[in-house]
């Protein structure tokens, strides 16, 4: 970085350009007292942008500014204009190296990840438009060696530092969905959940993969051989239950189970018989949890108790809604389940649990009261809310 004596604008290569100062009112508000380097570079940049100079030195100048402020929207956008204009494959590839350096300082702002997507769209094209753009780049000398594997490895490195990094998970979903590279994703989430069973981002990614993967074999949702007939549906429930055995207060696993029970019939095939068995298993599991919690006492099991009872109440109510045809009407599964179950009795059982939860979980008392009212109006009163 230039010392005070050698501001960029004082160097010979910028001699032809007069920096444009930032407009500031007579009485400035929320005025940032910039470092000299920063306002000098920004002054040059404004001059370049006004001139519309999309050159190599413009690219360099955006780098200088981004190292001082990686959240400057306008500078990133100008940088992409320059890159587009230079139309060089080498330049676009070098962006990943540049991003790597910027990431050394910071990985958390929208601009960084938006730029990363823009770069990948150029160097790893998937659509006809992107391919055409890619093939029209000046080839220069560098061969594209940035692969999907490298991109996913980069993300894994980010997760090493922050396993719940929101931008990085969103980016991973974008990459995986776009390039249909589903193969490693279930393993990744399994490993990350094993390492930290409370990592809700990993649970969410697991759900994303289950719901969106396009690599399921035809009729291939039957589990491994050896006479085991558990389907993907059952295996997934068992995985969550195993996690809950170790940490019964883990909300991530409970919400995953609830979501999975009511959403997965839309993307996995599951018979009414199998579904009933799983619900039965979960009911038993909750009973065991309640007994264990009663024996052990203590704060952790109390939290586990709340999560478990809340889960039971939810399942009862959400199932009752479907059995009454009030929700998710199009799915035959709910009709097939109906004969064995009584929605009104289920709703009443849910209400009893929410009444109990009002005392066990005072901070959410208002919500339990609201749920009771909802169940009364929707199922017991059968109003179409």
């Amino acid at each position, binding site marked *: 970085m230039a010392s005070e004596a050698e501001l960029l604008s004082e160097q010979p290569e910028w001699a032809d350009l007069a920096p444009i100062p930032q407009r500031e009112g007579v009485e400035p*508000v929320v005025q940032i*007292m910039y470092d000299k380097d920063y306002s000098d570079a920004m002054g040059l940049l404004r001059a370049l942008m006004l001139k519309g100079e999309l050159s190599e030195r413009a690219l360099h100048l955006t780098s200088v500014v981004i190292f001082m402020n990686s*959240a400057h*929207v*306008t500078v990133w956008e100008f940088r992409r204009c320059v890159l587009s204009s230079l139309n060089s494959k080498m330049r676009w590839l070098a962006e990943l190296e540049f991003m790597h350096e910027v990431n050394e300082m910071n990985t958390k702002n929208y601009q960084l990840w*938006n730029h990363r997507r823009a770069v990948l769209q150029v160097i790893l094209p998937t659509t006809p438009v992107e391919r055409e753009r890619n093939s029209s780049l000046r080839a220069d000398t560098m061969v594209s060696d940035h692969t999907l594997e490298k991109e996913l490895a980069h993300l894994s490195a980010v997760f090493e530092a922050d396993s719940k990094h929101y931008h990085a998970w969103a980016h991973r979903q974008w990459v995986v969905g776009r390039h249909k590279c589903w193969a490693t994703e279930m393993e990744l989430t399994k490993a990350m959940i094993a390492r930290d069973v409370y990592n*809700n981002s990993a649970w969410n990614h697991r759900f994303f993969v289950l719901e969106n993967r396009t690599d399921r074999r035809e009729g291939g949702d039957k589990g491994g051989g050896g006479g085991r007939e558990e389907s993907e549906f059952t295996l997934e429930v068992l995985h969550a239950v195993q996690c809950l055995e170790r940490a019964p207060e883990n*909300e991530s696993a409970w919400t995953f189970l609830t979501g999975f029970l009511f959403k997965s019939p839309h993307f996995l095939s599951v018979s009414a018989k199998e579904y009933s068995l799983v619900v039965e298993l979960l009911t038993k599991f909750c009973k065991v949890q309640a007994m264990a919690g009663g024996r052990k006492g203590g704060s952790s099991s109390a*939290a586990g108790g709340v999560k478990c009872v809340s889960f039971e109440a939810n399942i009862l109510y959400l199932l009752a809604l479907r059995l009454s045809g009030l929700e998710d009407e199009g799915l035959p599964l709910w009709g097939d389940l109906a004969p064995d179950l009584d929605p009104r009795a289920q709703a009443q059982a849910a209400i009893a649990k929410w009444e109990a939860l009002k005392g066990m979980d005072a901070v959410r008392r208002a919500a339990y009261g609201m749920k009771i009212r909802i169940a009364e109006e929707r199922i017991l009163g059968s109003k179409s809310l």
Partner: protein
Amino acid sequence: MATTSERETLALRRKVVGLLERGKRRRREEEEEEGSVSVSVSVEGTKKASTSRCFVASCFSRERVEAHVRFMLSGLKQLSPGFASLDASRPWLLYWVVHGLSLLGFEYERGDTGGEKLVPAAWYPYHEEVSEQLRSALERAPNKRACLDFLGSCQNPSGGYGGGPQQLSHIATTYAAVAALVIVGGKGALEQVDKAATKEFFRKMQVRQGDQKGAFTVHNGGEVDMRACYLAMAVCRMLGLDTDFLDVEGMVEYIRRCQSYEGGFGGEPGNEAHGGYSYCAFAALSLVGKEDEVDLYQLLEWVSNRQQPIEGGFNGRTNKLVDSCYSFWQGSLVCLVSDCYNQKFGADSCEAFHSEALQDWVLLCCQLDDGGLRDKPGTNPDYYHTCYSLSGLSLCFRIGAPDEGKTDLLCNIRADKLSEVMTKAVQSFV
């Protein structure tokens, strides 16, 4: 064996419980000290009764309000070089400061000469006791014209506001600028907004086809996510723009696809449920009257579980740590969902979360003696967290509160400021 995040959580919880105990003692002492003051105020009679629901009087002693006001004022004029990372967010800085100040009872005088100053509002509970120190700080603060001129300098002829002068228009800074205009100068100030160009800007930012149809990109070449949907709708509300010029149906469908299996919303379809995006999603739907397009029950389930029993505050995602800014994002979301149900039941608004628990978190764990509020113990106070902590606190007192004592759930500006610009009749400021 406890994992890292588990250990962190436990360590923080222990710290918080300790703080809570100390904080409660401190608060009792404060109350005892202030006992004489509150008695003398209450005998003033009717004037006090009308402000008794005001959250400022309920939460803060005079010294505390003044400390927070001074903290906010420190951001209004000049900021240290360290703030360069917010160089593209200056309208946000202004919004955080003036919104926080307005919730505390400090606002610009009415009038349109431009020379108007920041003063205590008529309802400010310690009106008669403003210290000399604060009076002179208010006197030194930029006047109304300075704020309006600055915001004006961020507007681009092609529509929208950038993060500073000579910067690209961004939907987020457009929201921040318009909200700040309403707070600082009311209806008169909105005259500077080129409404036709704003509409054109939004129209250009909306995605026309493909997976993201109906969503918005935050700026030309920028990312597409949930924030932009909400921010565009909120700006339309504040400017009184009918949303017919946009593909509302497409936007609603995009939002619907962002509801995760947990019930909250992610920034994009498939992403993890998150407090900020969930607020944006449901507030955007509420602004266009399409709350029923999503699974309301699952949303209630998710958001009510974000308030944490030990800390009292809200976290942003399942199993993450509590952060005071979610006092507003999740707090107002749970209010919106609750109001939506109550409307269906034909019932009045009711308390939607545990108000005392949230107050304990914000006031005992996130408040600093020197002014300002922070994310959580161990972090420094900042304007963003001060703004959203105060917004969240005001929710605790919203039932039955007068408009000037609460924030609007959908735009997050004081409700009286919003209704002032929403009234059709032209008001002239005297």
